[in-house]
């Protein structure tokens, strides 16, 4: 991996956390409404996976997708504007946090009905395979989503027709308040793939370099026309399921144990509002971000004040994103109708 990629990945990790923490703050201020599902703790998955993908690959994601969108190049301001419901948001204020779309960047959507990402992904995969293109689809889903019928149905079709789909499970061990061993008889998600003859493996979702490497290998294989691949990344979310969830179902000891892995999160109280301070981030130990910086330091890849420089840059980007969102106008009812009728062309209905 070259230094430029490494630094870009570090930037994306830091941006991911800073952006999400700011989103939480804006939610408590009332600037963001609805359901807001945040990503702190899981950054290494989106950053590692998507840096291993090509710009021509497609991404299909869930309602916890702000970071995926930004790593794919969607400007933070455009994402923040969507969270604010503004006209300059990526979905013109019609979709909100759970429905980010960007056709140009092949970001094919945030879907909020659990289990929708698989069929959409295999459909895109079908379109690619039919035209024999060198592209792939990356399909994100949670551990709770593997018990939806569409998971099994889609995996079967993907394998049957050798579709170029990379299934990526973000296993944070919870389906809202239900822990994985209470929702799944087989708790190692990757093992389910063998039922459909899909190669699969599990990797450490807190280690961005491991995630990146595993994804590279899987995508290389997919591009040989061998069909789909499934990757399971074990990770953990430090906040509640959404901003509406206090997270009280998780034993304090469990959260604390995970926080040991991620001292940034020590400061992330499970209840609102709780954001780590700059000092607490500085005191970080081995969470995915700190693990990344440790590895980079050990390899001599973080010389001088590189980290501080990127942190300052990210803080600036988040400020600008909020300013952009605030300045953006509200959409109108005409905008809403135009969005609904976008495929009607010139046809005039009686």
């Amino acid at each position, binding site marked *: 991996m070259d230094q430029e990629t490494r630094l870009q990945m570090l930037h994306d990790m830091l941006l991911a956390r800073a952006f999400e923490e700011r989103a939480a703050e804006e939610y408590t201020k009332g600037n963001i*409404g*609805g359901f807001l599902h945040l990503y702190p703790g899981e950054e290494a998955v989106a950053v590692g996976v998507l840096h291993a993908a090509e710009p021509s690959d497609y991404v299909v994601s869930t309602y916890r997708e702000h970071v995926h969108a930004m790593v794919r190049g969607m400007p933070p301001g455009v994402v923040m504007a969507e969270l604010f*419901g503004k006209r300059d948001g990526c979905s013109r204020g019609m979709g909100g946090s759970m429905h980010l779309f960007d056709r140009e960047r092949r970001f094919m959507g945030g879907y*909020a*009905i659990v289990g929708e990402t698989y069929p959409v992904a295999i459909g895109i995969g079908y379109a690619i395979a039919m035209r024999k293109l060198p592209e792939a689809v990356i399909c994100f889903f949670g551990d*709770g989503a593997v018990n939806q*019928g569409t998971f099994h149905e889609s995996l079967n079709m993907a394998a049957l027709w050798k579709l170029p789909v990379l299934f990526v499970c973000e296993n944070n061990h919870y*389906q809202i308040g239900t822990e994985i061993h209470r929702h799944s008889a087989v708790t190692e998600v990757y093992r389910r793939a063998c039922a459909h003859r899909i190669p699969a493996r599990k990797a450490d979702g807190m280690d961005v370099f491991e995630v990146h490497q595993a994804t590279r290998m899987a995508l290389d294989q997919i591009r040989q026309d061998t069909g789909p691949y499934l990757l399971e990344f074990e990770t953990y979310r430090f906040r509640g399921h959404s901003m509406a969830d206090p997270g009280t179902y998780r034993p304090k000891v469990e959260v604390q144990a995970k926080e040991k892995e991620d001292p940034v999160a020590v400061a992330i109280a499970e209840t609102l509002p709780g954001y780590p301070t700059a000092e607490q981030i500085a005191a970080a130990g081995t969470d995915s971000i700190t693990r990344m910086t440790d590895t980079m330091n050990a390899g001599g890849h973080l010389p001088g004040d590189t980290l501080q420089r990127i942190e300052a840059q990210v803080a600036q980007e988040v400020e600008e994103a909020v300013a952009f969102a605030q300045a953006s106008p509200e*959409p109108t009812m005409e905008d*809403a109708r135009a969005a609904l009728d976008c495929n009607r062309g010139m046809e005039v209905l009686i």
Partner: protein
Amino acid sequence: MTEEVFYWQALNRALDAELAADDAVFVLGEDVGLYGGSYRVTEGLYAKYGEWRVRDTPISEGSFTGLGVGAALAGMRPVVEIMTINFSLLALDAIVNMAAKVPFMSGGQFPMPLVVRMPGGVAKQLAAQHSQRLEQMYMNVPGLRLAVPSTPQDAWWQLRQAIRSDEPIVLLEHELLYFSKGPLDVTAGAPPMHRAAVRRKGADLTLVAWSRMVDLSLRAAGRLAEQGIEVEVIDLRSLRPIDWDTCAESVQRTHNLLVVEEDSGFAGAGAEVVATLGERCFFDLDAPPRRLAAEELPIPYNRNLEAACIPTVSGIVQTVKEMLEGGENP
């Protein structure tokens, strides 16, 4: 014996009472157990009745609702909770193709004591996939019943009646009603599950509504009364079947009909009300009946647009005045 409780508490007590009364009753759904339910409806029941009677399920709506059908066929009285009506689209096969059909297809051999509870409605910026109402979809299924409680008292009565009934029943709650309060008297005798309720008497116009729109309609009626217009507000309480007699009797007195519905009007529940009452009361009506419904749009995420999509108190006031006074603005 009357107490002020939240709507969710009334449902919670109804479940508790029925779980205690009959061992065949059990509850299942996502996060209904340990977590206590997304809207607290099943709070405390897991600790009291254990995991076999209050079951946390995987995210498998099609199959756990189908499980409810199978268990009902085998003599149980399942109460399936679907987190919101939006996800019930994944359980339509179980509800429409199975629960509503098996008693009939078997020539009347099987009872189907299945209750499927779920909230619908526009809440607070939950966007297009999480803001659907869809009641007309379940209204259109012979073999199903659809109850739409708008108060804690009705939530208590209708859920208990639904659990005791041998017919498959969809109990459609509303996300914004869970944390509304109202009186609950657990000793009062219940009216039939499908009986409409006249919530306010009035001589000038019959306003038909259900679920959350009842509250808005009553507030509008209050404002109109200050201006000398007396609106009769009927809460349907049940959308299949509909208590036509109560509605027709009212229209025959007021000679005017307005339906207020939270869903889009096209092919909606209000269309059914206007069509049937139009047939029954054509010669009683002084003016064409009207519907005040939501915009023909998926619900936008943006706060202002969301609010502009569904009926409001002032919108109801204005519509009533237009109907009675020929377009004069309030």
